[in-house]
């Protein structure tokens, strides 16, 4: 290209820079116009009832559990991840690109507690009574070309105000032996009815365990492996979870249900890979987010006994919770 004069080359560069800048700015502005604020409805509420709480376009909304096709009740409460049970809601909110906060809402949608959460929030749960709240965030995620990630999972007792900011401080029993390791990560808590014990995923040593934890005594113990994002059934006997195909997350995940008594695993009728913490919408139905190849989320339900076919509940929505 040295046959071009310097002047010519500078002109080409300036012209290209202008065209590219117009293209980039134009795209950004056009993208902005697509993001419109939600039209809210007055009757939005998270009190218990036959409804489904979802996150739709970054805002909380509810749909009828009996007929999800009826118009949704939309709120202006912004959350990237949410859950509600027993009249308590938890909302993980994005304050800026790299700062997030957790908000606890009562049944009147008033904020009863809030604090900053380190890292990028990813999972949220509330115990069925509405007393215990849990969240998971990625702490690392510094860049895409350096290895390693780290999660931080915390639990809040809304009645006493007790907080365990990280389960990594809990004493671990792995396969019956006391265990300690720096590579331990926890995620995806689900609470039992006693508002003390819970189940969660613990990853260490290349394995992803189902652990049972005790909030009061600050202990966890492993139960079985290749169980991620557990969700305890309302009767406390089964756990819905996602199971890495051939025990390798590279292959994706299948939804399954584990019987806690027999440790028998039933694969559900959903044949697509699901990367979500499922939620029990009733004693026999599992709700979950499916993400299309273009990224559009939708909320689906399938039978907990593996029968039937999955059905679409809400389009363009994620993070389901049965109220």
């Amino acid at each position, binding site marked *: 290209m040295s046959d071009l004069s310097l002047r010519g080359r500078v002109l080409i560069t300036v012209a290209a820079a202008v065209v590219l800048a117009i*293209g*980039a700015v134009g795209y950004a502005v056009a993208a902005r116009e697509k993001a419109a604020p939600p039209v809210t409805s007055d009757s939005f509420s998270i009190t218990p009832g036959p409804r489904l709480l979802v996150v739709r376009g970054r805002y909380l909304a509810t749909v009828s559990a009996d007929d999800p096709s009826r118009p949704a009740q939309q709120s202006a409460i912004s959350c990237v991840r949410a859950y509600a049970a027993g009249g308590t809601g938890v909302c993980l909110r994005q304050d800026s690109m790299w700062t997030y906060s957790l908000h606890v809402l009562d049944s009147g949608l008033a904020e009863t507690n809030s604090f900053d959460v380190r890292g990028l929030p990813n999972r949220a749960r509330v115990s069925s009574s509405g007393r215990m709240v849990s969240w998971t965030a990625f702490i690392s995620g510094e*860049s895409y070309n350096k*290895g390693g*990630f780290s999660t931080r999972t915390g639990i809040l007792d809304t009645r006493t105000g007790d907080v365990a900011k990280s389960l990594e401080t809990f004493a671990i029993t792995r396969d019956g032996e006391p265990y300690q390791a720096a590579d331990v990560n926890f995620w995806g808590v689900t609470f039992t009815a006693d508002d003390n014990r819970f189940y969660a995923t613990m990853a260490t040593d290349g394995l992803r365990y189902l652990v049972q934890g005790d909030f009061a005594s600050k202990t966890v113990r492993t139960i079985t492996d290749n169980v991620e*994002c557990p969700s305890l059934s309302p009767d406390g006997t089964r756990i819905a979870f*996602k199971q890495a195909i051939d025990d390798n997350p590279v292959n994706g995940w299948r939804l399954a249900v584990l019987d806690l008594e027999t440790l028998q695993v039933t694969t559900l009728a959903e044949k697509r890979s699901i990367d979500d913490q499922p939620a029990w919408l009733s004693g026999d139905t599992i709700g979950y987010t499916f993400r299309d190849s273009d990224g559009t989320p939708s909320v689906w339900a399938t039978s907990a006994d593996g029968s039937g076919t999955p059905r679409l509940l809400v389009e363009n929505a994620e993070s389901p919770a049965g109220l």
Partner: protein
Amino acid sequence: MYLSTIDRPKGSAGEKGRRRIGANVFALGAVSLVTDISSEMIVAVLPVYLVIGLNLSPAAYGVLDGIYTGATALLRLAGGYVADRTQRRKLVAGVGYSLSAVMKLGLLAAGRSVGAIGAVIAVDRAGKGLRSAPRDALITLSTPSADLGRAFGVHRTMDSAGAFLGPLVALAVLSLSAQSFDAVFVTSFCIASLGVLLLVLFVRDQRQHLPATHTVSIRSAAGLFGDAAVRRLLVAASLLGLVTVGEGFVYLLLQEREDLSIVWFPVLAVGTNLAYLLLATPFGMLADRVGRVPVMLGGYVALAGVYLLLFGPLGGWPMLVLTLLLHGVFYAATDGVLMALAGGVLPEALRTTGIALIQTGQALAYLVSSVLFGVAWQFWGATAACQVAAVAVLVTVFATGLLLKQKAQS
């Protein structure tokens, strides 16, 4: 011929030219600056995109993050060899820059498919692996060897200025587009394309008229190992790489401290890059004056300081600022200076291959060091692991000093 003589009379370096940095180095610096804005924009937003935008679970994130292409190392070596053999270093670098630019659009096309995103990241990395050796070789071939430290200093200053600006540009685009990740990808692609254009228009390939006996072949490339000075530098670079804990760990440990927990993650990278860009040129010039080995080893002493500060008595903002400053000192005193050292010992005909070899050796050593540090962390805890790392750095600095002193005497 007339035109070009009139057009660039200053191109032929006269007495005065020796004190200046060649236009080619500035051109390569501009390409790197623009390209780094583009790639650091993505680095800053990708974790947020994956975790918040796609709601990716920890294990899925781990799979993506763990994509390490051993092929990248091989590709780097092969690219370096082809660049030397065909004398087309600019072309090979251009392929690398273009691959990475196109992959920014690939992120858009991949949508939220985790597998596709993984593939895009792998190709992006391959592009990065391909371009850095021919680029650094062009810098050495465009600069008198006494000024190499300064030339690399100027290049790295421009490079890290791009890295410094990237996250800020990403923030600006996000606020302009109401948090659209796609807008960040499109902007990043536009900026990367400008980088490729700058390379095509302003960077001049350096082709030597080599005597027939100096043909570039696999045999002559393997002969690099037979050169004692090259071997010593390769060993030194790999040894120092072995005691360099990845910056990811450093930032992670900084964030583990309760008093710093709310600091935005990208701030850590921006802070390090600010120190890097301010210091790269002065350190490069210092290296030309007092010797490249002492400056480079001084940079590693600063790295040992970083490890000690992570669990030292200092806390809060003073600790953060000092840690990031020392981390920037480390990069400013080592990255370009090592290449300046390499430029001095590698034969011209095999410059790209040799540089690729040293960079690959160091990259593999980083990989091993990350694993070792992870194990040390697991068995001894983070505090002891950092202290051990600091001691290991100091011991290696001493050993490397002895090793490279031999070279000066022989």
